[in-house]
């Protein structure tokens, strides 16, 4: 990373961390404050009031949200919805939506199915125009939406994004309660609402669009898990350095110290894999890097949070300690948008060609 980027990121990280600390664990950061900070529009083009930065900057915020187990629709809006909008062909509809999002006037939610990788909606041509059908489950922060961006296949089978107000007749949303109290989820289903032609937004690169939506969602979750894992490591190291038993600080026991060392190694490896995926996502995208980051970082975070609970003893098992908050959050991160096994399946699809000498592995690049 060039030095000025590193400095910029450090600065951004500090400000976000500060804001989230002030907000506290039980509330979501104020939306107007977020809009004024410019973090909603980090990736939006400058001519649309954005910062013209890249996903690498959004990722810094996501990381801090994971670290604080923060609430609210920021990750869903900034990483997923705005990310989807930037993949679109410029158009008055798209541009207006970006401007409104950046200003905090609208909260668009991408209706990506968190449970299964598919294009959840279909546009059918009827006598009265276009009608939308389909359903998406585990849509992140769906209850917060005032607009929905619905990935759909148009009548020709081309992926598009359908932009509709959340309150549209024929479009229903229901909340899906989950154990992770820091986030909300919903199911969105469309029973044939009429879609105006200018609500159908086209992707700039239609062949890659669906893959990129899923990869971005996966990498965003990996950022969240990495931040959470760091928080759990820090909390555990602090606790092991003060809690005494048998007349010694427990961190001086090798059984404890070595588990902490393993946590650090896991966090370091995850940090490097997530870093590579974030850099790729800030450019052309790389499905291999995304699959590696998602499968590895999210699984590692669950192990780290579990070890944190173990090493805090009875205190760790209390509601008050807050470790369960991270454990529940990263366990859900791990299962959303492709389990580790699902992402590894994608990696493994390349191996037959590799064995025949027809493809390069990621590692030999």
């Amino acid at each position, binding site marked *: 990373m060039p030095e000025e980027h590193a400095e910029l990121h450090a600065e951004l990280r500090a400000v976000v961390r500060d804001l989230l600390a002030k907000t506290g664990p039980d509330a979501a950061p104020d939306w107007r404050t977020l809009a004024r900070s410019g973090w909603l529009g980090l990736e939006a083009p400058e001519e649309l009031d954005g910062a013209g930065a890249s996903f690498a900057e959004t990722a810094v915020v996501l990381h801090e949200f994971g670290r604080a187990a923060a609430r609210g629709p920021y990750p869903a809006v900034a990483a997923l919805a705005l990310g989807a909008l930037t993949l679109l062909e410029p158009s008055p509809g798209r541009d207006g939506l970006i401007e409104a999002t950046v200003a905090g006037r609208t909260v668009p939610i991408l209706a990506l199915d968190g449970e299964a990788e598919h294009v959840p909606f279909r546009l059918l041509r009827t006598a009265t125009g276009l009608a939308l059908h389909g359903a998406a489950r585990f849509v992140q922060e769906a209850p917060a939406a005032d607009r929905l961006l619905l990935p759909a296949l148009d009548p020709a089978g081309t992926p598009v994004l359908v932009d509709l107000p959340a309150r549209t007749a024929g479009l229903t949303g229901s909340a899906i309660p989950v154990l992770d109290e820091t986030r909300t989820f919903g199911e969105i289903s469309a029973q044939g609402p009429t879609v105006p032609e200018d609500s159908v937004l086209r992707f700039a690169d239609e062949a890659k669009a669906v893959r990129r939506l899923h990869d971005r969602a996966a990498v965003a979750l990996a950022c969240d898990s990495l931040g959470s894992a760091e928080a759990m490591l820090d909390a555990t*190291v602090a606790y*092991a*350095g003060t809690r005494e038993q048998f007349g*010694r*600080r427990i*961190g*001086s026991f*090798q059984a*404890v*110290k*070595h588990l*902490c*060392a*393993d946590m*650090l*190694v896991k966090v*370091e*490896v*995850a940090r*490097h*894999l997530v*870093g*590579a995926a974030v850099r790729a996502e800030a450019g052309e995208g790389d499905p291999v890097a995304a*699959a*590696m980051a998602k*499968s*590895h970082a999210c699984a590692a975070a669950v192990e780290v949070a579990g070890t944190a609970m173990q090493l805090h003893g009875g205190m760790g098992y209390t509601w008050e300690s807050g470790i369960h908050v991270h454990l529940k959050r990263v366990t859900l991160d791990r299962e959303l948008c492709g389990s580790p*096994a699902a*992402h*590894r*399946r994608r*990696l*493994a699809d390349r*191996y*037959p060609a*590799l*064995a*025949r000498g027809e493809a390069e*592995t*990621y*590692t*030999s690049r």
Partner: protein
Amino acid sequence: MSAADLADFRADVRAWCRAHIPSDWRAAQTGATDAEFVAFQQAWFQELRGAGYAVPHWPAEWGGGMSVAQQTVLYRELAAHDAPRLVLAFVAIHHAAATLLAAGTDAQRERHLPAILDGEIWVQGFSEPDAGSDLAALRTTARRQGDAYVVNGQKVWASGAAHADQCLLLARTDPAAPKRRGISYLLMDMRSPGVEVRPIRQATGESHFCEIFLDDVVIPAGNLVGPEHDGWRVAQETLGTERGMTMLELAERLGNGGFRWLVEACARPGRDGTAPLDDSRVRDRLAELETEVTGLRALCADLVANDAPGPADASIVKLYYSELLQRMTDFGAQIAGPAAHTVLRKPLSSGWESGAWVLDFVGSWEWTIPGGTSEIQRSIIGERGLGLPREPKAV
């Protein structure tokens, strides 16, 4: 160096690799005798030296002078082209050179650095029967007598001692001082009277490490490195110097040949006609290993590029590499099945992954035990990396 210059350099290295790496070296080095191994290693060293690739990390005035970015390219290409490794010269070009450059006298440097380029072989004589992890407990003594030290004691596990010309020796010069303060760092000619080397057969069946018995060996006082009694500090400062680039090279090898052979082994149909790759659990495990190797390579690239690495960064990389090597070779042994047990020899001059899976698996302990065991690394990571409380001192 600009990106374009670096790309030119990569192209040069590639062309050189294609022209100079003997295509049949693995076959020739499998079951090679000791003499054949030494001759091959010496010749390969001179080949690399001719291209300027043997000691890229040395200062320019001594024949090196490559930037970290260039070295990274060099080792990546050597790994991608499955070049033989410099096994025999390893201690000479890394530990000995680092020690001489950091703490040696001009005379010591002028005597040994050119000699190393001409093929002088070095061994590290640190460990003793009762001083392994607790190296500072070493008991070999060096008594000052006039212009020389007279050395008595025993070293063990000294890799390559049978072929060595010179030895990096730690010996106790002040028995009355606290453990770490009475040790001195000496350069010992292995042909000195009183030096006896006995090879020890190791788990893989080869005998690369040795015992060294020292009986009234006379070492000139001019062979002292750093101040007398200050050898512990000299050793600490020079031990880790080679770690970064070496780890990068090993990680690249694990990612290239190592992982590729594993996938190829998984794709080979067994006697029942099905290949391991048909099994989703095998594909899952492979993808996990590929991800881990990718993480390792990124860690290594970061370590070498970082001018001010954290106090435990090298330990993190060493621990992760060694245990990943173990997991990968273990998986290779499972994939290859009983047939892998009929592979009785692995190629010398190779890395720790050679495709001879069972021997590679057994050999992987060559990374989890020496240079600070995995347990010691975890303590270092906990204490220096995370600042956790140290263990109570032994009474």
